[in-house]
């Protein structure tokens, strides 16, 4: 039977930002299959020009409301690289703890509110309030806890106030840190329940595989999240590393008409960033409890099903939770002191990278001798995933056609695929639209 399909999802729901899915199939032949990004462009790289180095992270944090902690940290790291500032050990620990808070917070939001409804056959979390009230309440409480944990260090989680080039402007007390640690310990049962929820839903994750290149930060010290060098792994296990300063050599941005966001590629036509890419690169360095979680959820490196990104996020929720308990213990033991901001030792150009929940993030700035910004460049994880999503579409649509799925089923599968990347389109500029033409 020859199929005609026309999908045109304008402004995909349950993703951050705006994206369209367009698929046209005539007599079983695919005429168009596009992932489009129509988000209104916002020109941040131009906005930072002429601003003082102390203001730049405050501006670029506004690229994204969900990963504003990550943007702040990538920005202060790039500015510190440009100004020859070394972070202290305490600053490094506090920033890492702040990063874990964001990772936990954002993954809880995605797993429970954005991804789970598809697996439960619901259009959103709201109809689940009467039927799955305890699960929704658990999700809201974990989200609230992560918000307060991040706020304890960053001042707030949406556009943090205290993380600055050179250190922090305010520090939590050991007492506050202890109380937060106790609150984390108190939700250990809710964490186990989260694993059970995901485990129960996992069989509903569509089977699909498309090997690609996976890019993430890698560090010899820890599972790459706050800091590291750039590493990519191919499906055959072949790894390559790049210095953060050379990020342009492995991102190779380009612009195409179906997107207001720039796209990227490296060793092959497209690569993936995000929790699954981090897992595929660095799974050996996960916290033992997170390794157990991966095993319990059946996640094995190198995982090539993009739908499993949500499972990798769940594994990282466990990792960030236990790593944070360890860091909190260390900080409580060593004490937390007020440290004056480290001052610039030079003025030039520098790049910084960190992992945000959705993948590797690069910022780069240059400064004049008055510390005023001459220009900047930001490469956001969702942009790095656009080309990979497009390639997934091109592989998934023929597979679904062969399975004789109908238009609605195909539309849902493509929407779920995009959601599994947890895209942040206002970050990338904005993204998603599926259309089938008959």
């Amino acid at each position, binding site marked *: 039977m020859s199929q005609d399909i026309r999908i045109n999802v304008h*402004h995909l*729901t*349950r993703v*951050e*930002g705006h994206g369209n899915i367009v698929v046209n199939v005539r007599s079983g032949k695919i005429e168009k299959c596009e992932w489009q990004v*129509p*988000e*209104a*462009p*916002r*020109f*941040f*790289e*131009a*906005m930072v*020009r*002429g*601003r003082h180095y102390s*203001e730049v992270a*405050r*501006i670029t944090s*506004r*690229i*994204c*409301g*969900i990963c*504003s902690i990550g943007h702040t940290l990538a920005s202060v790291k790039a500015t510190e690289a440009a100004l020859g500032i070394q972070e202290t050990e305490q600053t490094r620990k506090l920033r890492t703890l702040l990063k874990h808070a964001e990772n936990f917070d954002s993954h809880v*939001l995605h797993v429970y*509110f*954005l991804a789970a*409804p598809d697996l439960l056959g619901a*259009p*959103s*979390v*709201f109809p689940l*309030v009467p039927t799955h009230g305890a699960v929704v*309440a*658990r999700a*809201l*409480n974990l*989200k*609230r806890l992560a918000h307060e944990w991040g706020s304890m260090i960053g*001042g*707030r*989680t*949406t*556009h943090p*106030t*205290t993380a*600055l080039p050179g250190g922090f*402007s*305010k520090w939590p007390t050991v007492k506050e840190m202890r109380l937060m640690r106790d609150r984390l310990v108190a939700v250990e049962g809710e964490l186990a329940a989260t694993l059970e929820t995901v485990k129960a839903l996992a069989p509903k994750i569509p089977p699909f595989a498309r090997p690609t290149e996976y890019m993430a930060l890698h560090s010899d010290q820890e599972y790459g999240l706050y800091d590291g060098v750039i590493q990519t792994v191919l499906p055959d296990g072949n790894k390559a590393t790049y210095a953060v300063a050379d990020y342009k050599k492995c991102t190779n941005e380009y*612009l195409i*008409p179906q997107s*207001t966001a720039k796209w990227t590629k490296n060793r092959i036509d497209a690569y993936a960033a995000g929790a699954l890419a981090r897992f595929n690169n660095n799974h050996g360095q996960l916290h033992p409890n997170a390794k157990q979680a991966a095993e319990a959820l059946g996640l094995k490196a190198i995982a090539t099903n993009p739908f499993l990104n949500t499972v990798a996020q769940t594994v990282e929720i466990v990792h960030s939770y236990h790593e944070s308990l360890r860091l909190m213990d260390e900080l409580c033991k060593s004490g937390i002191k007020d440290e004056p901001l480290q001052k610039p030792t030079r003025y030039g150009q520098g790049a910084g990278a960190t992992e945000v929940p959705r993948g590797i993030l690069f910022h780069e700035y240059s400064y004049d001798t*008055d510390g*005023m910004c001459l*220009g900047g460049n930001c490469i956001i994880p969702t942009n790095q995933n656009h080309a990979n999503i497009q390639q997934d579409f091109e592989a998934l649509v023929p597979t679904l056609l062969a399975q004789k799925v109908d238009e609605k089923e195909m539309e849902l599968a493509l929407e779920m695929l995009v959601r599994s990347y947890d895209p942040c389109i*206002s*970050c990338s500029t904005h993204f998603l639209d599926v259309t089938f033409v008959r």
Partner: protein
Amino acid sequence: MAKPKVAFFDFASCEGCQIEFTNFGGPAFLELLNHVDVVEFREAMSEQTKDPLDIALIEGSFTREADRARLEEIRKRAKIVIAYGACAATGGINALKNHTTDYKDFVYQKDARMPHLDSSQALPISAAIKVDYAALGCPCNKYEVLQILSHLLHGKEPVVPTFPVCVECKRRETVCRYAEGDHCLGPIARAGCDAPCPADGIPCEACRGLVEQANEAAMEKVLMQRAGFSKQRASDKSRMFAANCRADTVQEQKQ
């Protein structure tokens, strides 16, 4: 009686104000759902409707003519429109580029003329449609949003402070940034946030916009004399969040 229908919409923004809505925790969030029906919220739900709305919360700036029709459609459906966060209320951070003309070339270079990249000045949504109330700030203060909603549900007029941020610092007993050798826009910045930034050791950047008849010239002088800013830096300082509130911009937009 049916619960009032509330919907969220987004334009050019980071969608962080919508995220703030998920930070209330279980009890407050679930209690709110006892009083309103959230019928549309693209970032969190797939349900959509064409029904009339009681309250529309709109996040994001009006940056391209193509968005005007969508804004007008929302206005037609909604009894009350709330500009939700700085981007919608004043243009916010997006307006930081408004005084420049080469931003498109700078970001997209040789591709800058591709038609889908069209974008003009970042304006508050009130430049396209009538706005009834505003939840100011970047991000908006989530408790103020609850208060505005609560007032509206009870048929009361929400009260949003018009005094400067300095008042709130004094009330919290926060040491002045100038006394710490720093700078601050608190004297001309509109309050209502409870001044979290100076309390966290950083300057107020006036993310809620400027007070009425702000003495911008005096502010510039203070920035130069007390914080050692150059004339240029002092003059550009308030562009970060308040570009559309400055007297020079207001004048230009009138012409």
